[in-house]
């Protein structure tokens, strides 16, 4: 017995020595500095360049952020940084030819651990997004009811937009987590794509579904009056323009008025409805540059998940929704599409997220924030609302009753 006791003491002491060794010679933290250089690529010569860029050094792990403006050369230095893992974004706006142009670029999860490091950010320009996610209701309502999910797409521009052929989908991984996928794509450039678990497309021949400035369309999971089906649900979706109706099922009724979306890629669709996680998906709307091939999926290294790659250049708008604030540093959407993330922090409580109003034109049309950073652009609502802030309804929607 005595020898076992002594052996235990020796082993425990050895373990403690190993623990002590791991924390030996650790130094006190000191503030550090970093420099960012901005370069612009792909901008047409007739697009006016901004005078300076706002560069944000965001350390999500520390709740720490420093914002600086570049000089005329596009350079900026920031001191007082806490060593850590940063997302650095560069944004600017310019106006010309009656359009607003956004310039944005970012570096994600870069290690700034020592002073004097220089980072280059390549920014690209884009005209202010025309079609945007205006409101997303993914939470579901009390009683584990999730059939009332919907997506509101808004024309934020001053020109008519046609949604015929527009795709909508949620990307993989389905949940924001520390699990990351290493996608294997034929061209060997996985960073140029997003990977959708499912793709629904608006029907039409190109000019069937115009959406005027200030109008919005509703894509419902199931276009029914959910307040009648489930009294705890906050939404009546019977006036939705589109629904993601699963054809080969008889559980959920088909609304004869709402147009059925086309299920172009179905690896992320199970059962009788298009259920995207109530914990918060990452969504994109896009116009594909080629026909969706149901067998054109790819897989991550060492895994069996199948997803459809859509080039980032095809994406019109993207929104990252995570479970809660602690998950922002586990976001899935490329920062070039969404540098931040929004969240409700709960499930089945009727919460939704919607864009904040940036300005209202003289004729009463709202223009919503679209800085490609959902942390800044979105607000959390206690209760989802169909057509919040009274957007216009397309004239071809004759069944919507206000």
């Amino acid at each position, binding site marked *: 017995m005595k020898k076992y006791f002594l052996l235990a003491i020796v082993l425990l002491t050895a373990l403690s020595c190993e623990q002590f060794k791991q924390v030996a010679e650790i130094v006190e933290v*000191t503030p550090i500095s970093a420099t960012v250089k901005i370069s612009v690529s792909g901008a047409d010569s007739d697009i006016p360049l901004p005078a300076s860029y706002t560069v944000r050094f965001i350390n999500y792990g520390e709740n720490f952020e420093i914002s600086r403006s570049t000089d005329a050369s596009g350079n900026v230095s920031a001191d007082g940084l806490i060593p850590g893992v940063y997302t650095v974004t560069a944004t600017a706006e310019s106006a010309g030819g009656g359009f607003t142009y956004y310039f944005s670029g970012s570096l994600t999860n870069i*290690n700034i*651990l020592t002073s004097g490091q220089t980072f280059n950010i390549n920014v690209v320009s884009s005209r202010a997004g025309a079609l945007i996610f205006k409101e997303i209701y993914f939470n579901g309502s009390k009683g584990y009811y999730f059939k009332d999910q919907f997506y509101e797409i808004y024309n934020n521009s001053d020109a008519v937009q046609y949604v015929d052929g527009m795709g909508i989908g949620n990307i993989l991984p389905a949940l924001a987590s520390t699990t990351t996928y290493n996608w294997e794509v034929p061209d060997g450039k996985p960073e140029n794509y997003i990977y959708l678990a499912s793709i629904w497309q608006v029907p039409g021949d190109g000019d069937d579904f115009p959406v005027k400035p200030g109008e919005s369309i509703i894509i419902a999971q199931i276009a029914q009056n959910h307040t009648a089906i489930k009294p705890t649900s906050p939404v009546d979706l019977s006036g939705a323009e589109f629904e993601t109706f699963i054809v080969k099922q008889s559980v959920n009724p088909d609304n004869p008025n709402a147009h059925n979306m086309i299920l172009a890629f179905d690896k992320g669709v199970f059962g009788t409805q298009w259920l995207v996680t109530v914990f918060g998906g990452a969504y994109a709307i896009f116009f594909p540059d080629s026909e969706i091939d149901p067998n054109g999926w790819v897989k991550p290294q060492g895994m069996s998940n199948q997803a459809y790659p859509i080039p980032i250049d095809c994406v019109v708008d993207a929104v990252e929704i995570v479970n809660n604030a602690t998950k922002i540093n586990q976001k899935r959407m490329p920062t070039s599409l969404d540098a931040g993330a929004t969240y409700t922090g709960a499930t089945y409580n009727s919460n939704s997220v919607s864009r904040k109003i940036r300005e209202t034109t003289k004729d009463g049309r709202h223009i919503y924030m679209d800085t490609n950073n959902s942390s800044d652009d979105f607000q959390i609502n206690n209760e989802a609302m169909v057509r919040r802030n009274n957007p216009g309804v397309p004239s071809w929607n004759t069944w919507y009753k206000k």
Partner: protein
Amino acid sequence: MKKYIIASVLALSTILIAQAQGSKSTIYPTVLEINQAKATWFNTNNAAGMILTPLSDFGTLSVGYDMKVGSYRQQQEGDIKTLNINTSGSSPLGRARVWGEFSYQNITQENSKFNTLRLTLEPDMPYILADSRPSYFKKQVYDMTVKAATPLLWDIVAFGVTANYFTKSGAKQIDPRSDSYEYGIEVKPSTVFAFGDHSTGLTFIYKNAFDRYSPLNSNSQQDQPAFNLRGVGSFVNAVVGSFGGLGTYYYKTNRLGGALQYGYQGNNLKVLAEANYTYQVIDVFHTPAKPFRMGSTIQQVMGGNIQMVLEGDYFTNKVTIDGYKRSTDGIEYIQVIDATYTVQQWVSIAKFIRSEYDFTGLSLKYDIFRDSNEGYDWMAGIQGQYTDRLDTYIIPESSFKAENVYGEIYGKKNFMSGNNSIVVGLSAGYNYNIAGEHKYNGPFPDSEVVRDLYEKDLAILSANYYQFGINLKAIFPFGEKNTIYVAASCKYLRANETLHNYSYGTDTEGKNFWWNLNPGNQLTPSARTFANFSIGFTF
């Protein structure tokens, strides 16, 4: 494991009680009290020295109920009600000496805030999960300590060991709640050398502890916001619940150290000096399937104490001087996910000391006993304490300071009625705050952590207060040497002035702020009451 330990302790107590049957004089609790004051080696880390100043033979068993209620408390403390069962005993075992103690506590803690998991809170452990909902805990604590000393071999050297094992379990009762377990063992092998009136001792200290906490929600549909605290008001938001919510928390502790003792034992005078040092590391991480390091602490403790006991014909005098210096570094890790599909783990790419926690304590105590066959006829004492706590967060620079001096006088009178005894005690103390300040330069000056935890704790820790106490113990001998006793005590503490109000200042950018001590009347003076009732036996 637990049942073997309890069985061992009960067996030890039985042995001690059986051994103690040889003694004929009544074991009044007052006898045990003065004997422990005289047993200078017993009060050190060196169990071997117990052979030089042995305790008298005894056995005790008591059941008690403690209450600590009132708003003068730190936010994480809450109101505490405890059912205690305690047994202890000391006896020769052959030519060796053994002493053992076992206690069980059933604790109900109410209105505790900013602690979601931990059963034992330490001021130099910043890495804890906290939430702002007033909650209550149910806890159970099993604690066992054994000391053993060999006889003085060859009249020169003795060997000894102190072993402590504790296990605690508990659960927070309101979402976000927890299942919490803490285990630990501390072993202190020791030796003592005696040279006539002089003696020296050496002790090796080793402690290993392991804590496990599982945060969870009863209502799975409502995530609960929480804070991963990092010290001095620094925190990151956390969520209990949801997919990918916080997983199990682990705290791994190892402590090594040693102590040196010197003793002198003349005819009437006993002097014992001890110096000790310990080095402790605690690693904190959560979600073991994909471990994320919350942080580590490196704690160094230097301490020393001197005991002097002067025994006269009628009086026993004791002076105790204690010094304590604790320095703790808080280490945080910069971690990234290794996305390699065969790895998919958090990897530490850098680590820094981010915070420091320093505590200094000094105390001086003098007791005088009027000796009697029943222990003492009366006793009186006076003590003074100085404490200085300084917590620092390095970047963003923040600090928390509380410096206090406390003085207390106390005394007891032993009224005899035949063989029965009633001991009546009184105490009075006063705390004077020298300094108190919280500076915060982090990103969330209006957060609950800063305003409801640190602001209010500072108000408590930097207040002047007085306290009065009374205690009664009625002792009834039975049999040849046994007693049964009933004891009750009550202590009332009250801030004697309005608690400090704190001014709010911001810098030119409107971001940073600090709190300064100011006289004011916004915080209501608060009080706290400590009460105890117990019934026990001595054998």
